[in-house]
């Protein structure tokens, strides 16, 4: 951030206006004026004089990428809140596309950990054109707490709800007319700059500059070392307005040749260090020239307190650059590109390289920087670089073709991604890591639409070498292919490798898709307990200060929900599934990725008394969510039939059974898996209809296939259903044997729910089979006993309060420690003012906390909130 101390003196008038920005009800402070009116100085001066803590983010055009913007925002905030921002940063990564609303909510949650006030400054906001960033800022405005004071400095009014904020007195502004210098302020400034002018002449100067501080500054420089300033002002003849160039020409005339050339050459860079100046100008005395420029007040702005980085004020830089002739301009851009490259600052290096029309250099820089941008999820930045390069060079560069294809894939442009991959692979003779990445991409798609996923994945693995991020994806493709072929044993092995590789890649966004696939395979293959252990270990590492799981842990929560459903813990199952789906949605994870988990969501909603919501889960409603992985067809219609059966609507379920076909593209390797799953549900329908022979045929057929596949979980259900069919046919002995088979399979992994879902008619046989697994069978019996009385319980979580909302059973978030403090004060009858005093925060902050407590308890009044809190045992 710019270091203040320019010597304009304190501007009490402006400070008074800005002070109003600290009021609790003010949501935004805006300094909106053309360049050169002293916005930065006014704000910096105010911050200094009031001793306010601040986080200052200076924006440039490259920050129009949400991932990059968030990264810099978190870095700026760490100055005032060290350690804050991890959860927000974790939302971004390869394949991540979080909603700006989620990013904003996550960030505000993190900031709410303390209510020490500070000012958050976004400087040069006019460069922001990307809608996602405006959306993020809107969240900060609308829902920011009173102790975070947001300030925007800009050259034009931003597309934010200013009129509404203004009308409600929630906006404090400094506009051009506020920032114009008064005669008195001008006199003071001139005096500080070493210039004495009689008042009428100050008046003339202020008139001619219209109070424009940049103009005043230039005039002061010109006048300072001249003996006859009065005559100078008179000689400013005419009545028209001074433009910057006119005054700057005067100034530059008075500067010696050396310094002038230095200024012009160094203006090529948006920001520079002494070393960069040396590289640009070839001068060893770059440091002392910079000092001279600073002492002469030549618009040099230090950017950090160590005085390592500087920039010129925008107007001055722009003016200086207008002196550059073409060949020199290009040469300077080249030198800048090389220096920034050497300094490891890829983005700026690329910017300069692109300005030189030197395609080779730009290509090389982008090739080297592409991977980092991809891993950081900065796809907009990557796209911007790629767009600026000649398309045929991008297509023929293996590196760039591979990153382009993956970026297209991650943003849901799957057809374009595959097309580019195919074209490049056909055209290229040599095959290296870049081609390997393209093969992995093809492999992932082939798990659904082709048959060669494994061979593609294998070749990909050979080519990519040690790259754990892509090795993990390759294993995922191979593993999914094996799952689809119904080879659950091998699938589990491969997916375990993929998970291990993802752990070694050490980015959350790599681990979580791996957990999704592995969890699926483990559950079906009979390793429910292993899946649960993996999920819990991930969630341990992905919780915030209040013990709440972070949104990026969506897949761990979802798999946990599924395995807890299998274990018949409906409360935890529903909570985790609902939260997992919600988090996935706001992270932009494609619905196809969630396909295999949707049936569980529907079933658990049905089982916990939300039948409408159960069917709702099966509808693909709302805008199409993009895919960040290969699309897995849903089991929608089949699950709907199961839900109908649970509601005893046999007729409707039978209608489905009579016409059932698997929902997958023809020739898809998933057809068999879906067919087997479907046949099982058709058998359930036939059983309910009393058509026992048909049910038995289907079950026997499916059993053979699932045994070959190693699908233990499915075999458990098959056995239970066979028992039910046998019992219905009066074959008790057979029924007992079937039940015993299932118990044997289920005991190790703890699969309880499958018995409850399908085995109501054979529960009384459990004592007959108890001896094979006494503890487990006792749990089963207990589960059956508890089943009819199940309702929407509201258990307490040791770390806080787990809260249910009445009616549709949606779980709410836990209360933060602060909010629990507020709740307890409320229970003692404290008013907002009492709470503010008790916690030593402002009244606005207290009200904000109270509002959150009410919302989380689903209450519209304090009384209601306290009643609910008592019911839940919180107070």
């Amino acid at each position, binding site marked *: 951030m710019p270091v203040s101390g320019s010597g304009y003196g304190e501007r009490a008038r402006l400070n008074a206006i800005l002070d109003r920005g600290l009021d609790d009800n003010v949501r935004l402070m805006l300094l909106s004026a053309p360049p*050169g009116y002293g916005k930065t100085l006014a704000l910096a001066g105010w911050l200094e004089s009031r001793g306010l803590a601040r986080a200052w983010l200076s924006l440039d055009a490259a920050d129009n990428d949400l991932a990059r913007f968030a990264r810099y925002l978190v870095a700026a905030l760490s100055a005032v809140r060290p350690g804050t921002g991890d959860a927000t940063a974790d939302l971004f990564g390869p394949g991540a596309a979080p909603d700006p609303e989620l990013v904003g909510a996550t960030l505000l949650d993190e900031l709410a950990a303390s209510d020490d006030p500070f000012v958050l400054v976004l400087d040069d906001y006019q460069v922001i054109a990307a809608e996602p960033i405006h959306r993020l800022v809107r969240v900060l405005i609308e829902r920011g707490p009173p102790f975070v004071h947001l300030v925007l400095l800009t050259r034009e009014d931003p597309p934010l709800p200013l009129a509404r904020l203004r009308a409600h007195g929630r906006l404090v502004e400094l506009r051009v007319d506020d920032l114009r210098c008064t005669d008195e302020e001008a006199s003071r400034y001139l005096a500080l700059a070493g210039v004495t002018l009689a008042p009428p002449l100050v008046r003339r100067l202020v008139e001619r500059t219209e109070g424009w501080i940049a103009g005043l500054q230039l005039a002061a420089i010109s006048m300072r070392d001249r003996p006859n300033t009065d005559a100078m002002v008179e000689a400013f003849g005419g009545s*028209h307005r001074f433009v910057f160039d006119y005054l700057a020409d005067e100034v530059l005339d008075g500067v010696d040749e050396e310094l002038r050339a230095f200024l012009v050459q160094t203006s090529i860079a948006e920001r520079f260090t002494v070393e960069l100046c040396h590289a640009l100008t070839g001068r060893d005395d770059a440091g002392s020239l910079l000092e001279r420029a600073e002492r002469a007040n030549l618009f040099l702005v230090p950017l950090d307190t160590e005085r390592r980085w500087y920039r010129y004020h925008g107007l001055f830089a722009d003016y200086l650059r207008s002196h550059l002739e073409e060949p020199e301009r290009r040469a300077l851009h080249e030198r800048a590109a090389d220096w920034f490259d050497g300094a490891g600052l890829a983005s700026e290096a690329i910017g300069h390289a692109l300005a030189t029309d030197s395609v080779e250099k730009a290509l090389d820089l982008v090739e080297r920087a592409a991977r980092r941008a991809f891993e950081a999820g900065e796809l907009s930045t990557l796209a911007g670089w790629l767009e600026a390069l000649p398309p045929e060079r991008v297509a023929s560069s293996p590196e760039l073709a591979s990153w382009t294809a993956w970026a297209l894939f991650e943003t849901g*442009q799957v057809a374009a991604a595959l097309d580019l991959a195919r074209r490049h692979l056909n055209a290229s003779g040599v095959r290296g890591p870049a081609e390997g990445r393209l093969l992995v991409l093809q492999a992932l798609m082939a798990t659904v639409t082709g048959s060669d996923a494994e061979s593609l994945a294998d070749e990909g693995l050979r080519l990519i070498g040690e790259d754990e991020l892509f090795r993990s994806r390759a294993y995922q493709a191979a593993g999914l292919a094996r799952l689809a072929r119904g080879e659950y044993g091998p699938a589990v092995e491969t997916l375990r490798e993929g998970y291990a590789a993802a752990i070694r890649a050490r980015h959350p966004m790599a681990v979580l898709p791996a957990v999704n696939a592995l969890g699926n395979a483990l559950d079906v293959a009979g390793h429910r307990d292993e899946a649960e252990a993996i999920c819990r270990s991930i969630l341990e590492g992905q919780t915030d200060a209040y013990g709440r799981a972070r949104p990026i842990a969506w897949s761990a929560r979802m798999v946990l929900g599924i395995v807890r459903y299998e274990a018949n813990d409906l409360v935890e199952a529903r909570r985790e599934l609902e939260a997992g789906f919600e988090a996935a949605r706001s992270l932009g994870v494609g619905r196809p990725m969630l396909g295999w988990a949707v049936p569980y969501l529907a079933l658990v909603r049905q089982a916990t008394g939300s039948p409408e919501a159960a069917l709702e889960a099966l509808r693909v409603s709302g805008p199409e969510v993009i895919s960040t992985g290969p699309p897995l067809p849903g089991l929608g219609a089949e699950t709907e039939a199961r839900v109908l059966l649970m509601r005893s609507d046999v007729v409707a379920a039978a209608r489905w059974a009579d016409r059932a076909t698997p929902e997958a593209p023809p020739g898809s390797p998933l057809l068999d898996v879906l067919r087997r799953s479907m046949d099982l549900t058709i058998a359930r329908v036939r059983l309910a209809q009393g058509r026992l022979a048909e049910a038995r045929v289907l079950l026997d057929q499916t059993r053979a296939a699932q045994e070959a596949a190693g699908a233990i979980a499915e075999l458990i259900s098959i056995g239970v259903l066979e028992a039910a069919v046998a019992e219905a046919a009066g074959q008790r002995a057979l029924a007992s044997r079937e039940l015993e088979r299932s118990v044997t399979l289920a005991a190790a992994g703890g699969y309880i729910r499958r018995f409850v879902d399908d085995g109501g008619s054979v529960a009384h046989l459990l004592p007959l089979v108890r001896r094979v697994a006494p503890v487990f069978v006792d749990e089963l019996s207990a589960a059956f006993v508890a089943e009819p009385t199940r309702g929407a319980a509201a258990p307490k979580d040791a770390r806080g309060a787990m809260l249910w909302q009445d009616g549709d059973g949606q779980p709410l978030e836990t209360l933060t420690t602060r909010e629990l403090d507020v709740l307890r004060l409320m229970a003692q009858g404290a008013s907002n003012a009492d709470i503010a005093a008790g916690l030593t925060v402002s009244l606005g902050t207290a009200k904000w906390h109270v509002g959150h407590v009410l919302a989380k308890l689903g209450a519209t009044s304090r009384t209601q909130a306290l009643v609910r809190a008592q019911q839940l045992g919180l107070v």
Partner: protein
Amino acid sequence: MQRLAFREARASPPTPNIGAMEHYEIRVAGHLGQRRAQVLGCEELRLLPGGDSQLTFVAVDQAALYGLLTRLRDAGLELLSVERVAAPGRRTAGEDR
């Protein structure tokens, strides 16, 4: 989430349609220098007696025009008016010299 646009490789880049370009007369406060006018890429600069400047620009489309206005702002110039005009040297029917 925004969809990113990646250009397809094309045989050759499209050529701008010269006939579609429009002329604009833009007035700013103060008298501009030739150098700045050149850097901004204007066709003609007239210093008006009232103390303002009139710059004539050719813009290929609206996006180019808005980009130009931003550059004028970033040069610290106060915008007074923007008017689309017929190309200099061509007069519309009925207009006096």
